[in-house]
């Protein structure tokens, strides 16, 4: 009797559970594969030795103490936003509005520096900047949260639209505070007095940024994992009905969590303006509000894993800049390399969550 093959060549099934070590092995393999594919692409396109290109990436990101510091500064900036997004996404509230929340936080910080820089004593100025940035960010996220909780509006679109409002608002303030008049840039704020600039700590620039964000990392980890609020966020994220059934006030949790999320993103604006750029422009957020979504999701809201993801992303970015400069390529070539590496890393998550089952060579008699 002839047999009809019914089993497909390959089947995909969801893994029930996977050992941490195995998951990390898969991730490691994906990085190695990504580097190999990039090597082929690099050689095929620009005829460069891939090893030299990777060496250049390393040099660009951590080659000198100063570069290491800049990489660390940009890493904690990205990390801070990721931390801000984590509670919202864990609650399955699609906060696409980090970009805007950072910008309004930055505007609030810059406003304090410009208007109170000469009058307030240093500690009061920092306190004002700190609080104002968090309030501004929280305000920007509470508006969509309120409408979501009250009228079931779509938060993805709402938060996205709030970004555009924030960008326009930034342009407005840039035009208002432009320095010099007519140049349409704010330039460095309080260049002479350095009022409202986060000071160097242990003789190192950006140290305050790093310490602030590391504190947040620990704080958010504990908040999400061990606090009652964190538990409520998890329940609302898994199922709103369950949350209602066990007596959780979903509307309250949504608004509260989003205020927190926005406040931390606003704080990221404070760190960007007071701690590193000392200026404000539409590029203060620079797309990091979107990149941080990748950070939050890849790390599955574990803030310590977020450190790793942020380091990787910033490392790739700095490496790409160095490749472009050192080998006189345009930015696009080096961004392709970044793209390939990211693709593989995101792809590895598929193999961690699912398993491929190949058809047995010897036949499908089992059917």
């Amino acid at each position, binding site marked *: 009797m002839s047999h009809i093959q019914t089993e497909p060549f390959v089947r995909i099934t969801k893994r029930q559970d996977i050992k941490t070590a195995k998951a990390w092995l898969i991730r490691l393999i994906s990085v190695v594969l990504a580097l190999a594919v990039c090597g082929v692409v690099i050689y095929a396109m620009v005829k460069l030795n891939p090893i030299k290109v990777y060496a250049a990436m390393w040099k660009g990101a951590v080659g*000198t103490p*100063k*570069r290491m510091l*800049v990489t660390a500064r940009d890493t904690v900036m990205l990390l801070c936003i990721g931390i801000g997004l984590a509670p919202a996404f864990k609650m399955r509230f699609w906060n696409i509005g980090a970009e805007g929340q950072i910008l309004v936080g930055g505007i609030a910080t810059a406003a304090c520096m410009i208007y109170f820089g000469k009058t307030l004593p240093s500690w009061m100025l920092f306190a004002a900047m700190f609080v104002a940035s968090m309030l501004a960010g929280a305000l920007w996220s509470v508006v969509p949260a309120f409408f979501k909780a009250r009228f079931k509006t779509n938060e993805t679109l709402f938060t996205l639209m709030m970004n555009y409002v924030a960008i326009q608002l930034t342009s407005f303030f840039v035009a208002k505070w432009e*320095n*010099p*008049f*007519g*140049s*349409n*840039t704010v*330039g*460095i704020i309080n*260049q002479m007095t350095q009022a409202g600039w986060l000071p160097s700590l242990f003789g190192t620039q950006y140290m305050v940024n790093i310490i602030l964000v590391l504190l947040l990392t620990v704080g958010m980890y504990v908040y999400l994992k061990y606090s009652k609020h964190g538990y409520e966020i998890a329940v609302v994220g898994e199922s709103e009905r369950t949350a209602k059934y066990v007596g959780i006030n979903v509307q309250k949790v949504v608004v509260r969590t989003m205020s927190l999320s926005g406040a931390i993103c606003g704080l990221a604006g404070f760190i960007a303006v007071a701690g*590193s*750029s*000392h*200026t404000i*422009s539409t*590029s*203060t957020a620079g797309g990091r509000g979107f990149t941080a979504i990748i950070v939050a999701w890849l790390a599955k809201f574990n803030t310590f894993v977020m450190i790793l993801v942020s380091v990787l992303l910033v490392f790739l970015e700095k490496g790409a800049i160095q490749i472009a*400069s050192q080998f*006189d390529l*345009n*930015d696009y070539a080096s961004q392709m390399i970044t793209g390939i590496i990211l693709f593989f890393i995101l792809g590895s998550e598929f193999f961690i969550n699912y398993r491929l089952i190949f058809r047995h060579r010897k036949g499908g008699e089992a059917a």
Partner: protein
Amino acid sequence: MKRIITLLLALAMILSLVACGTAAKGSDDLKVGVILVGDENVGYDSAHIAGIKTAAAAVGIADDQIIWKYNIEEDESCYDTATDLVEQGCTYIISDSYGHQSYMQQAASENPDVTFISMTGDAAALSGLANFKNAFNYTYESRYVSGVVAGMKLAEMVANGEVPATSIDADGNIKIGYVGAYPYAEVVSGYTGFYLGVKSIVPNVAMTVTYTNSWYDPTAEAEAANSLISQGCVITSQHADSTGAPSACEAALEAGTPIYCVGYNIDMLSVAPKAALTSAQNNWSVYYTYALGCAVKGEEIKTDWAAGYAEGAVQISALGESCAAGTAEKVDEVIAAIKDGSLKIFDTANYTVGGAPVTTYLAIDTDGDWVGDTGEAIVNGVFEESVLRSAPYFGIRIDGITELQ
């Protein structure tokens, strides 16, 4: 006797070789960093790139001694780039755009051993930093000459009856237009120079200036040009870096509207062979040869440097086919007059504000309110541009020019 001459010659050769050797050795470990707001595709930046390359070749700086940084925005990334160039061993760092200045100044204050040159900037003298420099060309001179070219064309159009009635305003002035980047002194000085050049040939002109709020935005520049054309302007010029406006003019001219244009930096004939008359250009190699020459010799660079036609630092590009007869001769005559000083472009006899001549203007702002509080610019009835500092400070809005905001 012969032997002595041979000996002397040999000695001279050896000495010159040694001299060359030491000169080369002095500049061998020199590293120059260049921060550009755009890349070679942008006219403004390509002019700087060409200037630096010419200068480097002239003073003996090799290609691998220059680190180029393209597309650096006028924000904190400029500061990051400048500090990174210092890390890479650069002792001279040049930035080409005005908006880079405050970040360059910040880096200069933190790295006193490195010389920072903020091209077109205006803060070096006031900053009090010994390692922070500014430079600018007398661009208003080439603007004026390009205005003369436009004026010759306009006179020809008037003579041939090619100026439509809609292009003449209620006061009998012919409408011309200008696409500006940002409303501040560098742009005002440039468009006023252009306007006075046109006016020196055709006295009854009125100019409208519209701003794009960007140094480089092809779409916005084309839109601005189209809006000027629809208002009836028959000549446009620009202080913006793309070919957007000339392309728009060429399209309108093809469609039958009389419109000619004067560009900036790039020769526009490739995109607007009929509409483009000429472009006002900077020859940055004059400054860069001076500055990099100082770097090689280890000499101090001037805090403010400015030069014009007399030094060959400004020029206009080749005249287009549409230029009026006699333009080349007129241009030579005007350039000669600028060079020998008999023509003062900003002579207060040439313009008025509110119908009255300008008698005083304070050029330098020291207290940060954007209003000059020191430095009288008008000397013996002439506004002396770029003398008190290299960056232009002619911020007077003269009669006959309307700014749209």
